[in-house]
């Protein structure tokens, strides 16, 4: 089983980032929140692996702590 990849893995980071923000353009806060939630669920399903998902949740949580 593979580990959660926390090294750079997106070939064109600037382009991806711009695309992510563009998807939110013109949306209200509520619409943006909904979009994010749908996106997280789609990505999580694609990963599927429960251990990886737990590691991702933990990595996201830890990085938000002071």
């Amino acid at each position, binding site marked *: 089983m593979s580990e959660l990849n926390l090294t750079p893995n997106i070939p064109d980071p600037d382009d991806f980032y711009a695309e992510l923000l563009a998807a939110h353009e013109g949306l209200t806060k509520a619409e943006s929140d909904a979009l994010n*939630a749908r996106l997280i669920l789609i990505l999580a399903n694609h990963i599927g692996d429960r251990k990886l998902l737990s590691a991702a949740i933990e990595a996201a949580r830890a990085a938000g702590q002071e």
Partner: protein
Amino acid sequence: MNRIFETPLYPYTRSADQDALSAPHHRVVVVGAGPVGLAAAIDLALQGVEVLVLDENDKVSFGSRAICFAKRPLEILDRLGAGQRMVDKGVVWNLGRVFFRDREVYSFNLLPESGHRRPAFINLQQYYFEKFLVDRLREIEAEGAPIELRGMNRVEAVGLHPDHVHLEITTPEGPYELTCDWLIACDGARSPIRGMLGLDFVGKVFEDNFLIADVVMEADFPTERWFWFDPPFNPGQSALLHKQPDNVWRIDFQLGWNIDRKEELKPENIDRRLRAMLGEDIRYELEWSSIYTFQCRRMEKFRHGRVIFAGDSAHQVSPFGARGANSGLQDADNLCWKLRLVIEGKAPESLLDSYDVERIQAADENILNSTRSTEFITPKSEISRIFRDAVLDLSEHHEFARPLVNSGRLSVPAVHDGSPLNGPDALFGAPARTRPGAPATDAPLGQGFLLDRLGNRFVLLALGTEAPERLEEQGIIAEGLTVAPSQIGKELRERYLGEAPSAVYLIRPDQHVVARWPAFDETATRAALNRATARS
């Protein structure tokens, strides 16, 4: 209109016990003639244990209450001889539809696995369920089983002693007293006995109210389960439509926390809600309505000396997932054979502690599942609602999101992994679903089904190998059920053999697997029998 729940079903009659000079003694007293108390009493009496059922009422449950009965409880009822009448009357459905806001997002077909005698579940009003159990009780009573049911007998006080239990009872003709060896408290979620003994019942209250309306209507809706999240006719809340026998429909409106109960229950307000949901021109009769708040909680221990709690008195869950009566029946199933062996002096009292271990495990599983359903139906925070709505939006377009939609998970029996009664899992390549601790899975066998051949005693099921017809270990008998290779069908093979060429299963009187091996091993079987009865 069905008024079965307004007719006395076991009216009060005076018992000789009331005229006795000193408190008469009974072997087992069951307090409460709800689904769980009735099932437990029938189970004990069929096993030859003298049992007296007391209920403060003389009727079946008021209103429909429980309407979904799952496969495992039906199998238990088969063992008690009451399954067929439930299934004959019940409604079977396979198609469910999920609506979000103003649209249907998807539908699903449960496509239950084939090769089981019983469907995944049936819809049946609780009053029928209880009535059929009372009918069964009367049947076995007439056949001479040691069982008695007394209506309008309210237990007022309970005294717990090391070797007996003392009861004070009131009747329309005044009080009397009884003693018994064992008391099974099936007196419901508000359990007065729990209160009398000063025992705890802790858990979580959900800040929500649900209006339940059972209506009789000649509607041409198909026999399906419809669940709405945030529908236009009940904004921000949920709703459920479910079919019961006799053209009774269960309609369930989530109301939220701050409501005026009296206002909501006014027929004109219920009428307004029903018309908004089903159309202005519907014609119906309101059979029963009620407002519920839900709790998930359990007692810390179910057994307190000679008093044993079963059903809602021991644990309570939200109705999403239909786990109340369904799990209560499994409590009775788990308890009765153990109690019988203890009463017969064949097993030590410590066997009853395994009831606590196994049924607390099951209760925790049920509480977990029903808490999760409740969280999905009633998101507790803004972010919880955002994810919930995201799941529903996605479910309309993508199949992957549908398993995340949680409007109640079907009640399935707990597998008692790690139970102190389990023996070895020594069958290489065998399927996990029939591992030690699991309830035996049904499968076609001969002209009938496997489960009809199991239960009420220990069975040694031999597949493609041989087991003795009878094995006795210090008063405990295991009967052999040898299935010749030519009789092993596809399902039996898949569910019990897997990759293994042959197998011997030791199965408990409640149809749970104790142990399994590739072939009969006398020493190992004796050891497993002792372990399964807490004698080692």
